[in-house]
């Protein structure tokens, strides 16, 4: 979560960025490059590809600004570009493994705190491997929530869904992940 002063700095930089200030762009690059790289690398599982796609993301972001399109929230904006870049990459390379869709989804919405009580003794790399078997939207919501530590509000802006849907999605994602782990 961001502090008040970092929020303020970002807002000022954002105003300058909308005016085409390249130094403001550098500010956003420094601020988001690690997150965007991490987000992409967890999806494509390849450093070289992740680096190339991350570079594309920032170039596209700049191009969007140059075309003077309106942006309200830079974080949501750049994550959306990252998602689209990854989707385009998958379309071109057809590299994505098909997610495990045959697990039945559980409809009941039990309290999220239930997951806190279950202990999973599992290697982190294996966990990543299981995570990559999930549907893209499940992967995204788990990565954004637990790896990038974003709030539901921030995730809802990135995924362009309302907060309630994000909570449901997160619950379903966790449930499926647990099923995959247990099956493995």
């Amino acid at each position, binding site marked *: 979560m961001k502090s008040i002063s970092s929020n303020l700095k970002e807002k000022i930089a954002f105003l300058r960025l909308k005016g*085409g200030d*390249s130094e403001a*762009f*550098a500010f956003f*690059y*420094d601020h988001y*490059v*690690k997150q965007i*790289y*991490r987000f992409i*690398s*967890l999806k494509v*599982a390849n*450093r070289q590809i*992740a*680096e190339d796609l*991350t*570079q594309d993301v*920032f*170039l596209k972001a*700049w191009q969007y600004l*140059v075309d003077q399109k309106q942006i309200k929230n830079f974080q949501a904006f750049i994550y959306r570009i990252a998602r689209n870049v990854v989707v385009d990459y998958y379309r071109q390379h057809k590299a994505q493994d098909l997610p495990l869709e045959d697990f039945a989804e559980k409809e009941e919405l039990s309290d999220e705190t239930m*997951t*806190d*009580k*279950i*202990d*999973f*003794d*599992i290697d*982190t*790399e294996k*966990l*990543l491997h299981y*995570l990559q078997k999930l549907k893209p939207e499940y992967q995204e919501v*788990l*990565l954004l929530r*637990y*790896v*990038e*530590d974003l709030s539901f509000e921030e995730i809802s802006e990135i995924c362009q869904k309302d907060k309630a849907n994000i909570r449901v999605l997160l619950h379903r994602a*966790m449930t499926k*992940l*647990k099923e995959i782990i247990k099956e493995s």
Partner: protein
Amino acid sequence: MNLAKKISQIKHLPLCQVDNDWERTTKHQLLSEIYSQHRLMKAHSLTAEERFRLFSMKITRRLMPSLAKTVAFLLVIFLGSGMTFAAQASVPGEALWPIKRGFEKAELTLAVSSTKEAEVYIKHITKRLQELDKIVASTKSDPDKQIANDKVLKQVISYLGKDTAAVDKTLQIVKEEKEAPLETVLLAQKVKEVANQTKDKVIVLEAQALTNNNPVLEQALAEVKTASADADKTAVKVAVEVHQEVVASAAQNVEKSTNSQADQKQAVADQAEVKAVQTAVAEIIKSEISQLTTDIQDSKKQAEAVNSQVNKDIVQVTPAININGDVISLKEISEKPKAAEGKLGEAKLLLDAGSFKDAADKLLESKVMQENIGSALRTIEKTVKDSVNSTSTIEQVKPISKPTTLNTINTASTTTEINRAMNGLDIQAKPESEFLQ
């Protein structure tokens, strides 16, 4: 640990850690791209009056007092003749070095255009090369100073790398700004010349660093070599692209022209410009061909030398090389430069036919092959040298008559090193024992 916390641990995996060098390089590339796009965008969207106003503002801005400009101006004027002249010969560590660097920064600040900026960088690169000569000469005359001089050398090499990368980027900006085509091509020629001088110097220093077993210096030199190779490629690419644009523009003007006097004058001027640019670009490509011919000849000699050394000194390590099922000897590596020569021959034909773009593409292919060969040969040379210097057991081992005698030598690491070198040439090296019956 609960699952949510476990998921959060994923951020600590090595895959998720950004490489700092990549981060810095990408930032620099993005900002250069953005900067050149931004300037181009601004230029395109202006009316003629606005452009004139912007131009005059640019000149005024460069001359208007600001702290940096004032300091720069004072440095140039007051320190102009005496101290800066004395400082020209200084190197890092000497008293006048900061004045020299200050003067150089002032020169950059006062450059009125990107072309001038590139020329200043070229001048600085030439100075860095002179400084390297001075430091090397100093070490030769007083070997006790080697350690101190190595530090100074590394500093100068670092500046050289930065200046070379900067001239590369500035040339790209000059190209994007669509300055006078002939001026751009002539600038590309200068960049190419200085990049070649840098490359030659680096090769000499690399050999010394290898002899003195100085991996830190080797690494620094490798970076400069990459930067100068990139600058060289940019120079050729810019020259060829400008030529294509000039030819296309002249052709367009011919299509649109009427028989008016103005149009006829324009056509004549266009033709003259095309011819001048063509001559300059042809010179650049010829120089590239000449340089590459020399490099390929050197590679051939190097391959023969490595081959004879391997045969003489370490018979047991000589690998039988498996290329697509055919077993050939290390000796035949000298055939590899011929493929690069073939591409070079094609480039010459295309140049003679006036197809500069295609000639440049063939040159690039030949260059990449040549670089791979050179890099593989260097690695093999180093591996052979390390094997000769390593243990005395090598001297005791007799030439192979049976495969089992290989067990007395540690061929694994040598073969692995050679494998890595060969991978650059798409071939696999295996110990001879695997192929002996």
